[in-house]
């Protein structure tokens, strides 16, 4: 029963947040400290609680037994992703950055500025592997509404193409450094 309870909780933890689902997880196997990607790993505790009031000759319903741990897992996932956003917003890195703009004034510059500061890789066909952008529902509506206009704008296209070429050059320079030298 404990095993089933835990599995439901992990299903909630691992299957409910789309951003978290896309992120890789580093599992530490031994020791009390770790470094990852050049930084020191700083573990934070996620905590959820469950209280069961004693019932006379009556256990939990199946829905309760399977649903409560799933919900607890989902709450833990929510805590995790909140922490991720706090960390990302602290300092831009080649792999993550935050975007901000006054409400209602989302422009292509916001994207261009963000991508400009990041490391972009390309696949074997030369297609850029863009990072995932996470937007609030309100921002998403705003971006979706403006996207056709940007795509049709020659100046915007030009700037986008220039960014891709700069990133491609940076990528090739990085890849060219992957060699053994004397």
């Amino acid at each position, binding site marked *: 029963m404990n095993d089933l309870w835990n599995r*439901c909780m992990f299903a909630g933890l691992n299957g409910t947040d789309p951003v978290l689902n896309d992120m890789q997880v580093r599992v530490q196997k031994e*020791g009390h*400290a770790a470094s990852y990607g050049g930084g020191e790993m700083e573990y934070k505790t996620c905590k959820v609680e469950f209280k069961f009031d004693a019932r006379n000759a009556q256990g939990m319903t199946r829905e309760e037994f399977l649903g409560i741990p799933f919900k607890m897992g989902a709450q833990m996932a929510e805590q995790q992703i909140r922490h991720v956003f706090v960390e990302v917003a602290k300092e831009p890195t080649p792999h993550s950055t935050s975007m901000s703009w006054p409400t209602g004034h989302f422009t292509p510059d916001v994207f261009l500025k963000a991508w400009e500061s990041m490391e972009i890789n390309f696949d074997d066909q030369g297609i850029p592997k863009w990072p995932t952008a996470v937007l609030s529902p309100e921002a998403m509506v705003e971006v979706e509404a403006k996207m056709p206009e940007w795509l049709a704008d020659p100046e915007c296209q030009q700037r986008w193409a220039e960014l891709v070429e700069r990133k491609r050059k940076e990528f090739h320079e990085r890849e060219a450094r992957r060699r053994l030298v004397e």
Partner: protein
Amino acid sequence: MKERLVEDWLSRINERGYEVPFCQTLIAKGYRVVRCGHSPIEHGKDVIAIAPDGLVYCYQLKSGDVAQTELAKHLPQLNMLVEARPSHPSLPADFKYCPVLVTTGEYSPPAVSLVKELNGSWKDRSLPELALIGGRQLLAELVSLSDDFWPVDAPALRQFRELYLVDGRGDLEVAQFAKFIAEIVGGLSTPRELERKSAAANLFASYLLGPFYEEADHWSIFRGWIVCAGAIARAGAQAEHDSVHWFPSFELARNGGLTALRALRDEALGQDAFRVYQREVDDYTRVRNTITMAAAACAQLIDQIEGADTDPDPILDIIADFVTRGRFFFWGERAFSSFSTIIWLLDTVGLSEQANALLMSVVQSVSERNHPESEEPYDDPYDTEDESIIKLLGREDSEGNRSNRRSVQSYSLLPLVLLAARRNLRSQLEALWPRISHVRLTRFRADAPIDLLSWHCDKGREEDLAFEQPQSWQGLREVALRDDSDRLPAVIRDDPAFALMFAVAYPHRILLSLTKYLDEVVVPASANQSKQ
């Protein structure tokens, strides 16, 4: 209950299975054990020990009840035991010896009577008389030696019961076994307590390995003894008492492992040893082929280190055949220790070309499979062989499992690349470098080197590394040739044979310092050549 359990174990164990505990009873009485274990040159003497009064005792170990007919059947061996003077480099120039027949059962009255008659005849010829030790005496000594160390709290009792009640047909649950043994031998100890705890660790290891002795599962026996030896050495180093208080027990466990390793090698060299008789998936067969031949290679390397004149050709023939037919399998990063052991054997016999080809095939494979975006990375070395095979067959229970989201790195690539750098394989590495440089490297460092001997180490750091871009070949060579052996426990540094067995028995413990140390001491020629 304790006595019943030891009695039950004693009634089932074969003579090889109680060599270590028997020697432990001798050590407890102040004897110095100079040889323990069957060998072709034993001349009826399984154990040789020097008593505190200087008398040399030679023991032949049997199991079960001994009747007169049984005794008569073993008469040639008994004659050798009594008549052939023991020979061992540790024995003094002049000594008196006493032959003893030991069994786990009882002697029938006619058997005792026959020994009396034989003794009369040996005495007439000025030969020593044969003494007898039976199961009751053994039982009393074993029970008294382990008396204070039986698990008392519920989790430890449950753990002991689970470990003891296996049928020996599956693999030893090494992690659980290691935890149990570490608890017996761990904690603060006076010198006397350390001696008793170390002895108890060996006794309990014997009890728990009993089912595997019954099934002649040499692989499980080997790992059990090496883990036990590691736990004793760690406790000894932590207690900081003179090694005299733990080393004899360590040595018994270490030699118990070596005996099992050699038995596995002998089995591997038998006719049709690798024939598959029952339904099993080929991935499993290839994993077993790889581990068995790594164990055989390890035994051969130890023979070479110890100067034993063992012919490597039968092992090399099988290795060549398995390489040609694709019968080896790098199933996950845990296979690193198997492959490196086989590579070292090829190197020591001058087959460097084959060794290098095998090494570079693994470097290529890991660099292709373990890049950060890989969807099919090799399992890390902490995943057991069974776990990896289940994943390969796509039968992993994936509910709530986010293995698909795990970041990919490699524990084995850095030691593999540095082995190649030690062998001056620059052009081969250059060809693979764009791939290699993409892989994130991981290594584990224990805070205290002695903790590396524990199966699971809580005190240490896992570190992520990456090769430089561009990477200097000279820098790589410098790291590859730098002596890091001070990061290893003394018991590994001082005993290359134990170091080899440790590497094979602890496949999750992929250590750069251990790999370089073994490459230096096992294959000095390659290191010397590469330093030029």
